[in-house]
C-alpha cells in the first residue's frame, strides 16, 4: 500500500510575504504494520522519504520528528506535536508504549506506532534549538536570532536554551563590534550581562565588564568625533546610572574628558569675549554647552555673553533673498523686510474695521469729513528716526506721482495735494473719503534701495544685512552697544524640516520659522509642561493658490480648462491628510477665492470672503469632461485664426522650495494624472517664489492678504503675483478703489471674490495657519505675531536651561 502525503498544507507565519508553495512529496515505503490491530488505520506498508525543504523550520507548522528503527529503514516521520501541553524535552522513548500519531502530511488519519520501533523522538523545540545553534555556528546570526526569539517566547524552559542564547549574545556582540555596529554590540553585551553577569566565553580571558567598557569607550569616542556630544552624554549618563562606574572605568574617564573639553571651550569663549569678538565667543560658548551644559561657570559665561551681545539664531525653511515687508507672495522677504527697511505705516493686526495700523513716527488723524489726513510727527530724539514733515510730504507726493518708481495708483487716485505745517505736521488732502487710507501706506519710508560695496542692501531699518551666504544671512543691530537688547539675528537656512527641528532641539537655533504644519502640530501635541520648546501660530493665515500663466499656455487661457484643473484637485484630502497629518486646525480650510476666509463668520479678517461661494469639490469625472471641452474650444479657436492646433503637453507646475509646497504639488500632480494630465514639477531655488523665467504653466503661490481692501489690487492688479487679465476682475478692482464706506467695501470685495471664482483667475486651494517654534530663552516674542520679527525690539534673551 502506498500513501502519498502532500505537505502543501504547511502554514506560513502570519505577516510574511506569500510565496509559491512548493510541493514536497513524502513517500512512505515498506512500512510493516507495526501494530497488528487496534489502530485506527494501518500504517503504510513501505515508505521512501524525499524531502525538499523550501520553508525554514521556523516557518513550518510545528511538528515532532520520530525516527524509526532499522526495520523501518530508519524512516523519519513528521508528526503533529505529541502530548500537547505536558511534554517536556528531552523526551525518552517508552518502549512499551503505543504512540498514537497524526502525520503532518495528512492529519485526518491517526496511526499507532509501537515504542519498540522508535529510535528517537525529537520534539519541535529541540529541533528549533538545534537549528538555532547550527545557524549561530554558521555565523548566520540574524536568522539564528529568529529561532532564539521564538524559543524564548514559546519554550523559555527548554534545557540548554539559556546557555545557547548566552553564547548567541556573545557571538552577536562580537560580530556587531567587528562590523562597526557598536551600539548594537553594547546592547547585546548588556543583555548578556543581565542574564549572566559572570558569563565567560570558553577560551577567553576578558570578562563581560571589560568587553562592555571597551565597546562603550569606542562608542563615546565615535560620538565625540562626530560632534554628537548630546548622544555621548546621554549614553554615559545611562550607563552610569545602570551600572555605576566601578566596573566600567571608561565612564568616569569620558565624563572627565568631556568636562575638560567644555572647560577649554569656556576659556576660549571668555578670551574671545574679552577681545569683544562676540560672534566667535558665542560660537565657542555654544560648543561648550553642546559638550557639557553644566560645566562650571558655563551658565554665568552664557549669561554674560547674552547680556553683552544678545544673538538670536533663527532657523528658516524659506531664506530671505530680498527684504521687502510688502511682498504678498514671498514669506522670507516679508519676514525680514521690516528688519532692514522701515515702513511708513505698519500693520499691527486685524480689527473690527479692517486692519489696525501704527505710524511709527507719530500719529495719523483724519478730519471730520474724512477728506484730509493729518500726520503729526513726534519730535525726533533718535537720530536714525529724524524725519521732517518736508521729507514725509515729499514721500507721500512721490507715491502719487506717475513718474515715480514707487507710484501707487490707488494712493494717486486719492491724493490731491500735501502741505507742511510747522515742520512736524503734514496735511494731505484727499479727493474723496476712504475707509482706510493708512492701509495704502504700508510702503518703505525711504524709496532708495541702496546696496553697499559688498552688494548687501542698506536700509533705514534697525538692522543691517552684515553677511549673506548660501545658508546664512546675518542681521546686525545698527545702534547696538554692549548690553543692548539684541545685537544680531542670524538666519540659518534648512532645506529639510526634520533637520531644522533637530537644530532647534539641540539649541543650534533659538527659533524655527514656519514649520511644516503637521510637524508643528505634532510638536505641540507632544509638548510636556517643562518643555523648553514652545510652538505658536501667526496671527494671520496665508492663502495658497495656483496662479495660471495664461500668456504661456493657450489651454490655461481657457476658463473651462482652469475649471477642470480646479475640479481635479482633492483639496480637502491634501490639506487634511498631507499637510495637517489628519488633524483639524482652527483657521485651516479649503477656500473658494483669493482672500482669507478667517477662522469663522465672526473673524474680522474674513471680511472679503464670500462664504456663499463654496469651494469647487473634487469631481475627477467632471474635470476630465471639462478638459475635453476645453481642448475642443482651443482647437476651434486655432482653426478660426488659422493657427496650428495647440497640443496639450505636460503641464509645468512651479513651487517654492519647501516641504509644504513640495508635498502639496506632488499630490496635485498625482491627482491631475488621473485626469490624463501629465504634470512636471519645477522647484524654484530656495527663497524664490516667482517664476522669473516664465517657464511654468502654473505657480504654487502662498499669499499673505492682510488687508483685502488694498491687497486685492496688489494681488490681482497689473504688477501683482496673480495679475488677472479678466475685464470683470479689473472692473471689480476699479469699483473697489472707488469705495468710500465699509459697506461698499464689503460689497465690492464679495463681488470681486465672485468674479475671480467665476473666471477661475486663480485656482484657490486652502488657507493655512502658519506656525513657528522657539526656545523659551527668547522672551517677549509676542503671542500670535503677524510676522516673526514684529516685536523684535522687545525681545529678550535668557540663558538656556541646562540639561
Amino acid at each position, binding site marked *: 500500500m502506498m500513501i502519498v502525503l502532500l505537505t502543501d498544507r504547511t502554514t506560513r507565519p502570519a505577516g510574511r510575504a506569500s510565496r509559491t508553495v512548493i510541493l514536497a512529496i513524502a513517500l512512505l515505503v515498506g512500512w510493516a504494520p507495526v501494530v497488528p490491530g487496534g489502530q485506527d488505520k494501518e500504517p503504510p506498508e513501505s515508505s521512501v522519504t524525499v524531502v525538499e525543504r523550501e520553508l525554514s523550520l521556523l516557518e513550518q507548522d510545528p511538528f515532532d520528528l520520530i525516527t524509526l528503527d532499522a526495520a523501518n529503514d530508519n524512516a523519519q516521520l513528521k508528526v503533529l506535536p505529541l502530548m500537547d501541553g505536558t511534554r517536556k524535552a528531552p523526551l525518552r522513548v517508552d518502549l512499551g508504549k503505543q504512540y498514537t500519531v497524526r502525520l503532518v502530511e495528512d492529519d485526518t488519519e491517526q496511526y499507532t506506532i509501537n515504542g519498540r520501533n522508535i529510535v528517537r523522538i525529537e520534539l519541535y523545540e529541540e529541533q528549533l534549538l538545534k537549528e538555532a545553534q547550527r545557524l549561530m555556528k554558521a555565523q548566520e546570526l540574524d536568522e539564528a536570532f529568529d529561532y532564539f526569539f521564538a524559543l524564548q517566547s514559546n519554550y523559555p524552559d527548554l534545557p540548554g536554551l539559556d546557555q545557547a542564547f548566552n553564547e548567541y549574545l556573545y557571538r552577536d556582540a562580537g560580530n556587531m563590534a567587528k562590523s562597526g555596529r557598536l551600539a548594537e554590540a553594547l546592547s547585546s553585551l548588556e543583555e548578556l550581562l543581565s542574564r549572566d553577569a559572570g558569563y565567560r566565553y570558553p577560551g577567553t580571558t576578558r570578562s563581560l565588564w571589560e568587553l562592555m567598557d571597551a565597546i562603550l569607550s569606542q562608542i563615546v569616542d565615535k560620538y565625540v568625533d562626530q560632534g554628537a556630544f548630546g548622544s555621548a552624554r546621554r549614553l554615559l549618563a545611562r550607563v552610569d546610572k545602570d551600572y555605576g562606574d566601578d566596573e566600567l572605568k571608561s565612564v568616569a574617564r569620558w565624563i572627565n574628558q568631556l568636562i575638560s573639553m567644555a572647560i577649554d571651550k569656556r576659556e576660549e569663549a571668555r578670551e574671545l569675549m574679552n577681545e569683544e569678538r562676540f560672534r566667535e565667543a558665542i560660537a565657542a560658548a555654544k560648543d561648550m554647552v553642546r559638550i557639557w551644559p553644566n560645566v562650571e561657570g558655563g551658565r554665568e559665561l552664557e549669561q554674560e555673553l547674552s547680556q553683552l551681545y544678545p544673538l538670536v539664531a533663527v532657523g528658516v525653511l524659506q531664506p530671505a533673498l530680498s527684504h521687502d515687508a510688502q511682498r504678498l507672495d514671498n514669506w522670507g522677504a516679508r519676514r525680514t523686510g521690516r528688519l532692514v527697511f522701515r515702513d511708513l505705516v505698519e500693520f499691527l493686526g486685524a480689527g473690527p474695521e479692517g486692519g489696525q495700523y501704527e505710524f511709527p513716527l507719530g500719529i495719523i488723524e483724519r478730519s471730520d469729513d474724512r477728506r484730509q489726513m493729518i500726520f503729526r510727527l513726534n519730535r525726533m530724539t533718535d537720530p536714525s528716526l529724524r524725519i521732517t514733515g518736508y521729507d514725509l510730504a515729499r514721500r507721500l507726493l512721490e507715491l502719487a*506721482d506717475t513718474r515715480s518708481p514707487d507710484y501707487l495708483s490707488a494712493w494717486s487716485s486719492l491724493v490731491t495735494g*500735501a502741505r507742511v505745517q510747522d515742520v512736524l505736521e503734514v496735511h494731505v488732502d484727499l479727493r474723496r473719503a476712504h475707509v482706510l487710507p493708512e492701509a495704502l501706506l504700508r510702503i518703505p519710508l525711504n524709496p532708495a534701495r541702496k546696496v553697499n560695496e559688498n552688494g548687501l542692501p542698506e536700509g533705514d531699518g534697525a538692522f543691517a544685512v552684515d553677511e549673506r551666504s548660501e545658508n546664512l544671512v546675518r542681521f546686525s543691530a545698527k545702534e547696538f552697544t554692549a548690553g543692548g537688547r539684541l545685537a544680531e539675528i542670524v538666519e540659518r537656512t534648512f532645506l529639510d524640516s526634520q533637520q531644522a527641528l533637530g537644530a532647534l532641539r539641540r539649541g543650534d537655533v533659538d527659533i524655527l520659522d514656519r514649520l511644516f504644519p503637521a510637524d508643528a502640530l505634532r510638536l505641540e501635541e507632544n509638548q510636556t509642561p517643562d518643555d523648553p520648546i514652545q510652538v505658536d501660530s501667526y496671527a494671520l493665515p496665508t492663502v495658497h493658490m495656483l496662479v495660471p500663466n495664461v500668456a504661456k499656455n493657450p489651454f490655461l487661457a481657457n476658463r473651462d480648462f482652469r475649471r477642470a484643473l480646479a475640479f481635479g484637485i482633492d483639496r480637502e484630502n491634501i490639506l487634511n491628510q498631507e499637510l495637517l497629518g489628519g488633524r483639524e486646525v482652527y483657521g485651516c480650510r479649503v477656500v473658494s477665492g483669493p482672500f482669507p476666509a478667517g477662522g469663522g463668520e465672526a473673524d474680522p479678517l474674513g471680511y472679503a470672503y464670500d462664504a456663499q461661494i463654496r469651494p469647487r469639490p473634487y469631481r475627477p469625472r467632471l474635470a476630465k469632461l471639462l478638459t475635453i471641452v476645453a481642448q475642443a474650444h482651443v482647437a476651434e479657436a486655432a482653426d478660426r485664426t488659422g493657427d496650428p492646433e495647440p497640443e496639450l503637453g505636460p503641464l509645468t507646475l512651479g513651487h517654492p522650495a519647501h516641504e509644504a509646497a513640495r508635498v502639496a504639488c506632488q499630490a496635485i500632480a498625482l491627482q491631475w494624472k488621473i485626469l490624463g494630465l501629465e504634470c512636471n514639477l519645477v522647484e524654484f531655488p530656495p527663497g524664490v517664489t516667482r517664476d522669473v523665467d516664465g517657464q511654468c504653466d502654473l505657480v504654487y503661490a502662498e499669499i499673505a492678504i492682510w488687508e483685502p481692501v488694498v491687497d486685492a489690487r496688489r494681488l490681482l492688479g497689473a504688477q501683482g503675483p496673480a495679475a488677472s487679465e479678466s475685464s470683470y476682475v479689473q472692473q471689480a478692482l476699479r469699483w473697489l478703489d472707488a469705495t468710500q464706506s465699509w459697506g461698499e467695501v464689503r460689497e465690492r470685495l464679495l463681488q470681486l471674490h465672485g468674479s475671480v471664482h467665476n473666471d477661475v483667475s486663480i485656482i484657490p486651494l486652502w488657507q493655512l495657519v502658519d506656525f513657528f517654534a522657539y526656545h523659551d530663552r527668547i522672551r517677549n516674542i509676542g503671542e500670535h505675531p503677524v510676522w516673526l520679527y514684529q516685536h523684535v525690539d522687545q525681545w529678550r534673551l535668557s540663558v538656556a536651561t541646562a540639561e
Partner: protein
Amino acid sequence: LLVTDRGEIRVFDVDIADADQPVKDAAAMSKMYDQPVIGYPLTDASSLWVADNRLTNYKIQVTTAQINREPAITHVGDTFVAPLQLFQDVLVHVRRVQRSAGVTVAGVQIDNLRKPLWETRIGVPLGEVVLDSEKNEFLAVTAAAELFDVNRQALEEGIVNEPQANAAIGGIPLAFTDALPLADRRVAVFNPDDYSTWLHLDPAGETRRLRLVKSAVKPVQASCRPVAFQNGVLLPCVDGRVLLLDPAKGEQQTLPFQPRLQPGEEVVWRRPAVIGGGGDFVIADDQRRVYRVGIKPQPQPFLGELQQKQLDLSITSDLATVGDTIYGVAQDGGKNVLLALDPAKLEPAGQWDLEGGRITWGPRCVGDMVLVVINARRMYGFDAGREPLWSEAVDIPGQPLSDPLIRNGEFIFASADGTVWSVSEESGEVAKRLSVGEPLVTGPAAIGKQLMVGGEGTLYIIPPPADPS
C-alpha cells in the same frame, strides 16, 4: 581720403597711369551719424584720426580693403573745434569740453589717446572779480574754477599766467559764470546749467579761498537763479522746495520752505526778492501765487510762510525790491506790465505798461531804484516811491552784461559787443560810451579811477566812458 560730415569714410586709390579707371575704391566705412557733424580728419601712413564729437582712431588696411576702428575712442560728447595737428608722435587737438566754458588744447601720444601729455584751457570767461579797493588789486575767478590773484605786479606786467588755486574736480562741468555776491565780500559762482555745485570764494579766507561746494541736499534742480539771504544762498527748486543753503558747506541752514504741492507738480519759481531788512523774502510762482516767507525758530529753524496771496496777474520775471516796494513783470492781457507790490499786504500797488516789449534784463535793484530792460534796447527805471525815474524809457546801446557800476550819479554798464556806456541817473540820458573792441563777458568794476571789464580769458583796464562830444 574722404570723410563726410555723417562720419562716412572712403579711401580711394588714384592711379593716373590707368586711363580707364584712374580712381578705385581702396577701403570704405559706412556713415556713423544721422545728423551732420563737423569733423577734422588727419592721416599718417595707415592711421586715420577723426575728431568730431569724439576722437576716433582708424587703421586703413588697403590690402583687405578695410577700415578698422581702434577701441580707444575718447572725449565722447566734447566738440572739436579746430583741425588736428601731428608733431612726430604727438597729436594736438582743440575742443570744447562738454558743458564747460572755454576751449581746451591738448597733446596726446598717438598710441595712447586717453592720457594727455599736456593740456591747457584758453578763452575761459571770467566768473567773477572781487576787488580789494584799498590795494586796487583784485581776485578773478574763471568759469574753469581757477583763481587768479591780479596784484599790482600782475597789473604792471599785464599778464598773470599761473592761477593761485584751482578748485576743479574731474567730471564737474567747468562753466561757473553766474556770480552771486554774498556778505563779507564772499562770492558764490554757479554753473547756470547745474546749481547743485558752485564755487565759493572767500577773499578773507586764510586757506583755500576758492572751494568747490556741493549741495548736501539732493536732488537739486533750480527753478530760478539763487539770491543771497541771511548769510546763505536761497535756492528755489523745481520740486517746490526753497532751500536755504550754507554757501561754504552746502548744508541746509534751515529747513526749507515748501508750499502745498500736488502729486508730480513742478513749480516754476520767480527769483525771490529779499525784504524787511533782509529778514524775509517774497517769492512768486507761475500760478499767480505770491508768498512772503521768513525764518521761524520752532520746532527747529525753518522757512515758514508768513503770508500768501493769489494775484490776478501772473508774475513772469525775477522780483526786485527797493524800499517798500517789490517790482516784478507780469502778463496782463498778453502784454508785459511792471507790477509793484506792497510787501506788507502782498497786494498790487501800481502797474506800468512796458510797451508790450520782451523783458531781456531785470528787474534789478540798483542803488535806490529798480531797472528793467525790454528788447535789449530800452531801459526803464523806478524808485522806491513807485514812480518812474524818467519821463520815458531810455534807448540803450545794448543788453547789460551785469549790474552796473554806480559812480557820480551815473550807471555804467558793459555790453557783450564790447561797448561800455553810462546812463545818467537823473536824466536817463546815455551820454557817454566807449568801445573796447573785443567781446566782453563781465563788468564793469572800478579800479581806482579806471574801470575793469572782462573778456574771454582777458581783463581790460579802461578809462571811464567819455562824452563823445
